[in-house]
């Protein structure tokens, strides 16, 4: 065959032709297409047609047990919470159409901040429109030019984006490595402002930070400490205040960041603090000022839920029981897990690679179980994870059913023998 046939006469392509600003996403588009071409259901395009309870929904036409929703305390269908939202919707309307510092602070926003102050026993509480914005706003505003932010390399995207939005020097350290953190603090000029950012529970593997020791080291070097307790609020600690409570350091940390979109069961974010000048944040924190406040129904549901979570010790005990049963059962079946023992309500099942992870995810969905498929770059060490988050409303029978589903799907996909 002549070479002329495979190289037809055609104009020379101009460099850059067919390229635009989207070209940088080509490899990701290709990877995603390859996954879909293999016939798998799209793990990132699931639709819940009907939500039956905090633990059950109709997903892609099938009745499904929910094991990947962060709805730890199952507050989304609590009758008092729903009623509070309905009343606020009727009394105050569907939205505030305004910033917290202009026309967007209603009675409900104040009541929600009061509930948070009581929940944490702190002097100040500031409610943001999302948890993402709480980290974005607080970190970028308090750490300015010439200051240093020292943070765990596995920090959530909202923490990294808060760093990127501000002008401070950013110094990461190896995950949960106290010695690496101390070395960096020691090398920072003594007179520079320092903020150490930690998380109570790291959401990818479900492991917790050694806060008692880390907060002590941070304080030794004169750093302020911010702890994100998004995945522990309502569940960890005697009063559900988070890992800071279990570790006995709640009075030593300067800021706790949290969210309403997990245990609280709605949407929104917050920061609580005892700092005497904290209220100035309301005027200088741009992600707080330049966005509309939460709708009245949302703050009403949040405030009601937060107050109920103060008295949720029975639910907390049952959630721990669920976490222990699932962790032990999965380990027994031969799955590789993110932590040796259950440290939170998140149990991460480590998959050998993205292809087999996606196949296992689909096999579970067909069994009637929804978990999160987590993949790089969201995951540490480029792992593919099936992340399970338990709910206090999962019954013990449901947890047994979940384990049976994992066994069948794991064997069908060859993840376990």
């Amino acid at each position, binding site marked *: 065959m002549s070479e002329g046939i495979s190289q037809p006469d055609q104009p020379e392509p101009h460099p850059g032709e067919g390229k635009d600003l989207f070209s940088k996403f080509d490899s990701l588009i290709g990877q995603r297409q390859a996954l879909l071409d293999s016939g798998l259901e799209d793990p990132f395009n699931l639709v819940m047609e009907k939500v039956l309870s905090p633990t059950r929904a109709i997903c892609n036409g099938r009745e499904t047990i929910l094991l990947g929703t962060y709805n730890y305390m199952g507050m989304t269908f609590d009758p008092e919470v729903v009623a509070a939202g309905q009343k606020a919707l009727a009394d105050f309307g569907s939205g505030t159409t305004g910033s917290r510092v202009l026309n967007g602070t209603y009675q409900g926003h104040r009541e929600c901040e009061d509930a948070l102050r009581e929940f944490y026993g702190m002097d100040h509480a500031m409610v943001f429109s999302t948890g993402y914005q709480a980290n974005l706003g607080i970190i970028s505003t308090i750490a300015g030019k010439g200051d240093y932010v020292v943070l765990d390399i596995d920090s959530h995207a909202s923490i990294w984006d808060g760093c990127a939005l501000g002008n401070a*020097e950013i110094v990461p350290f190896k995950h949960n490595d106290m010695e690496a953190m101390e*070395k960096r603090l020691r*090398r920072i000029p003594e007179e520079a402002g320092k903020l150490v950012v930690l998380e109570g529970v790291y959401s990818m593997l479900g492991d917790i930070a050694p806060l008692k020791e880390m907060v002590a080291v941070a304080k030794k070097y004169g750093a302020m400490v911010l702890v994100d307790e998004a995945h522990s609020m309502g569940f960890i600690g005697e009063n559900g205040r988070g890992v800071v409570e279990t570790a006995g350091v709640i009075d030593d940390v300067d800021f706790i960041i949290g969210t309403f979109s997990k245990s609280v069961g709605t949407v929104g974010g917050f920061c609580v603090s005892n700092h005497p000048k904290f209220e100035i944040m309301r005027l200088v924190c741009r992600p707080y000022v330049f966005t509309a406040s939460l709708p009245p129904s949302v703050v009403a549901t949040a405030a009601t839920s937060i107050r109920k979570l103060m008295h949720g010790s029975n639910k907390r005990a049952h959630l721990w029981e669920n976490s222990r049963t699932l962790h032990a059962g999965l380990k027994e079946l031969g799955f590789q897990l993110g932590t040796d023992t259950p440290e939170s309500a998140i149990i991460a099942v480590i998959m050998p690679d993205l292809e087999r992870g996606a196949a296992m995810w689909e096999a579970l969905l067909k069994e009637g179980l929804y978990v999160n498929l987590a993949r790089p770059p969201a995951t540490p060490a480029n792992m593919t994870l099936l992340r399970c988050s338990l709910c206090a409303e999962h019954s013990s029978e449901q947890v047994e059913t979940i384990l049976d589903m994992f066994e069948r799907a794991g064997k069908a996909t060859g993840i376990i023998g």
Partner: protein
Amino acid sequence: MDRAEVDSRIRSLIEPFNKKGVTITDDTTFAGDLEFDSLTVMDFVAAIEDEFDIIISMNQQAEIEKYGQLVDAVCKLADD
């Protein structure tokens, strides 16, 4: 500390990270030539920071693309 000494100390630190045995010059790039991903960068930076007892913040790392720039930056930081 003179540049030659910094250069030789960084050269020995980079060895375990230089999996393909790329010949290193001042113009060698970390992302392109050495194919460092973000995890490798973290471990490599930590090794240099410990060796010279300095901090190379992410803001400073963003300015360093080539080996020679790293040696210059470490010389400056170690002198401060």
